[in-house]
């Protein structure tokens, strides 16, 4: 009897011990190490998401940096978008985060607010930011602290398939003046004229930045600087009403639209020549053009709201560089970041793969060698320069999943399960609940 009892005690103790280990594993770690270069060889871990071509270019960046800095080795880790954020979440939670990470606006505050990113202000000795405008830098700040450095600047645009429009003998619309009503009318005309072979538009309002622009045109915004949701249903409903009115007439059927939401680039109707307009960042024209060499794409400005003097346009960083707050080598990490952000060598290797460089010197260095579609994208940034307004508040923690929430409710409308009013009210409720849950 006694042996059995003591064994049980032992067993319980073992479990307690094991869970204590696990418990210890997930606390917040120690303070950031001193920002000074080490005398010994240092290995940095660097992670990014992207396509195969980006992986190749980034490996070239690493090689070039290592050649200039023989004492610093950089180990690259990469994956696709979805896998990337799973890995980020688990490696940061496990105290095993890479030293330098590629960051997105959707997640910047999620990580920054929880002290997971290094204050880049502490690394100014190694990291120069002179090439960046104040507006650009501001887009990487949360609560006045520079947590991330923008890599590229983009602006949301309408990508138009000119080949398709030419075939249908429809002129390019005047995008300086066009309104959302014009947009809907022209889209319907395209569908009609082609006899259903081509549709005018893809889904409207299936993504946060478009909704943000539209809300700004109505004098509203998605979030405020305190990370509260400020969107009003009436600032979103008209967009989803367009989807409802245009499904099958000017847009693909509801099912095809739902499918297009998750289609890979080379299967999108725009690339296949079955759709005339789509909302994309201007910088995406390069990959769209590469996927459809026999189509000609051009960039148009976003439609405006009739009677509003707000364009709502803004430059959005394509992505950011950031350093983990728990890196053991902040100085070396900053040095590598400095290379990525400022070096002309890096700019030339990278081209526009991560967007039109936010660093103005880098852009000037590569501008003469831009391929035609990248030049179109760069020109578009120049074209809207006087129309862009201050960037909107960063996406707060808890709202990283905002695009999934938007698409879910947009689909409810498409499939007639909710009216546009109901869906936008529901979306705002859900978003507010998610943000509040993360803030508590």
């Amino acid at each position, binding site marked *: *009897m006694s*042996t059995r009892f003591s064994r049980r005690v032992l*067993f319980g103790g*073992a*479990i307690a011990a*094991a*869970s204590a*280990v*696990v*418990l210890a594993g*997930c*606390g*917040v770690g120690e303070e950031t190490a001193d920002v000074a270069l080490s005398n010994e060889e240092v290995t940095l871990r660097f992670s990014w998401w992207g396509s195969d071509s980006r992986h190749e270019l980034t490996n070239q960046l690493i090689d070039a940096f290592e050649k200039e800095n023989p004492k610093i080795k950089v180990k690259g880790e990469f994956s696709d978008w*979805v896998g990337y*954020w*799973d890995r980020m*979440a*688990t490696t*940061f*939670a496990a105290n095993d985060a890479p030293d330098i990470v590629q960051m997105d606006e959707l997640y910047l505050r*999620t*990580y920054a607010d*929880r*002290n*997971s990113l290094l204050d880049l202000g502490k690394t100014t000795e190694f990291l120069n930011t002179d090439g960046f405008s104040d507006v650009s830098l501001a887009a990487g700040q949360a609560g006045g602290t520079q947590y991330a450095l923008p890599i590229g600047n983009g602006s949301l645009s309408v990508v138009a398939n000119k080949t398709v429009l030419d075939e249908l003998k429809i002129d390019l619309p005047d995008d300086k003046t066009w309104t959302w009503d014009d947009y809907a009318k022209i889209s319907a005309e395209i569908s009609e004229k082609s006899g259903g072979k081509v549709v005018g538009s893809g889904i409207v309002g299936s993504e946060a930045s478009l909704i943000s622009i539209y809300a700004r045109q109505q004098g509203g915004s998605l979030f405020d600087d305190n990370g509260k949701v400020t969107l009003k249903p009436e600032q979103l409903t008209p967009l989803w009403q367009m989807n409802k009115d245009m499904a099958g007439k000017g847009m693909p059927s*509801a*099912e*095809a639209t*739902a*499918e297009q*939401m*998750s289609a890979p680039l080379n299967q999108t109707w725009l690339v296949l020549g079955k759709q005339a307009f789509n909302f994309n960042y201007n910088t995406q024209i390069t990959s769209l053009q590469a996927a459809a060499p026999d189509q000609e794409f051009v960039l148009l400005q976003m439609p405006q709201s009739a009677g509003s003097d707000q364009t709502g346009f803004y430059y959005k960083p394509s992505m950011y560089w950031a350093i983990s707050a728990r890196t053991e080598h902040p100085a070396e990490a900053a040095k590598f970041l400095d290379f990525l952000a400022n070096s002309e060598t890096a700019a030339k290797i990278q081209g526009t793969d991560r967007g039109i460089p936010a660093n103005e010197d880098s852009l000037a260095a590569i501008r003469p060698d831009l391929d035609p579609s990248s030049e179109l994208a760069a020109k578009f940034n120049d074209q809207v320069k006087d129309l862009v307004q201050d960037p909107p508040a960063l996406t707060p*923690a*808890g709202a*990283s*999943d905002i695009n*999934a929430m938007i*698409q*879910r409710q947009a*689909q*409810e409308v498409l*499939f007639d*399960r909710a009216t546009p009013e109901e869906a936008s009210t529901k979306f705002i409720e859900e978003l507010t609940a*998610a943000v509040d*849950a*993360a803030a*508590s």
Partner: protein
Amino acid sequence: MVSEFRALRKAPGGSGQKGRVNSRDGRAAAVFLAPWVVGLVVITAGPMLMSLYLSFTDYNLLSNANFTGLENIQRMLDDDRLVKSLTVTMVYVFVSTPIQLAVALGLAVVLDRGLRGLALYRSIFYLPSLLGSSVAVAILWKRVFGVDGLFNQFLALFGIDGPGWISSPSTALSTLILLHVWTFGAPMVIFLAGLRQIPREFYEAAAVDGASKRQQFRRITLPLLSPIIFFNLVLGIIGAFQSFTQAFIVSDGRGGPSDSTLFFTLYLYQQGFQNFNMGYASALAWLLLIIIAAFTAINFWVSKYWVFYDN
């Protein structure tokens, strides 16, 4: 399993010698048990206890966990998507499992008739079970049932203009149920083994008495096979509750269109890894455990009324 366990307990010594365990045997047993105990503690029990603790916290992966008492349970009570995901999962489990078992049993009976090339058929039918929960097949499935997919191209031959099966909320779940049914091979193989255990004499005797094939199936095969059916049913239901890969791939981790394929496990993953609500996700995991345990208990209780043990 259970009987083995009993045998082990009865084995040497039994109740009479409790106090005098041979110390050398005891040590040997401890050594042999060690890998299992270590595995249990480190890989299963430790994380489970951890997740039980986390389910009462607001752990967000990046900051320290704060104890929040029953807040996560409170949150479950007015979580519409939780209700939605439970509904989707229940439909999936209780539609796909019976159909899958019926198909498996039917084919097992046919194959048991002594078909030539049985081994080959068995392997072919078993193949989907190996592939069914793989990423590759889920991707294939997405293509086959897409708007321009193989299935619609097939329907087009007959002039039918099929919808986007996976992109329409009214049919998306059915395609996943079909995918699950398609993996009938594993229960089928178990049924086949069970059918082999039924003595042929029963059938011969029944045939002599003039019983039809259908009567033989109902009066001999089903009762004698009922423990196997029960076994497959329990495992099938537990497995179906935990399905994840198919819905994750087919809907790109979203559970769409319009939450129609939002499996419970998928929702749990979204909360934990996409929304950083790991505390809430842990609570959801425990809810799933409780639900599965409850259904398994019901299953065992009901089994008293229909499962026939021949001893």
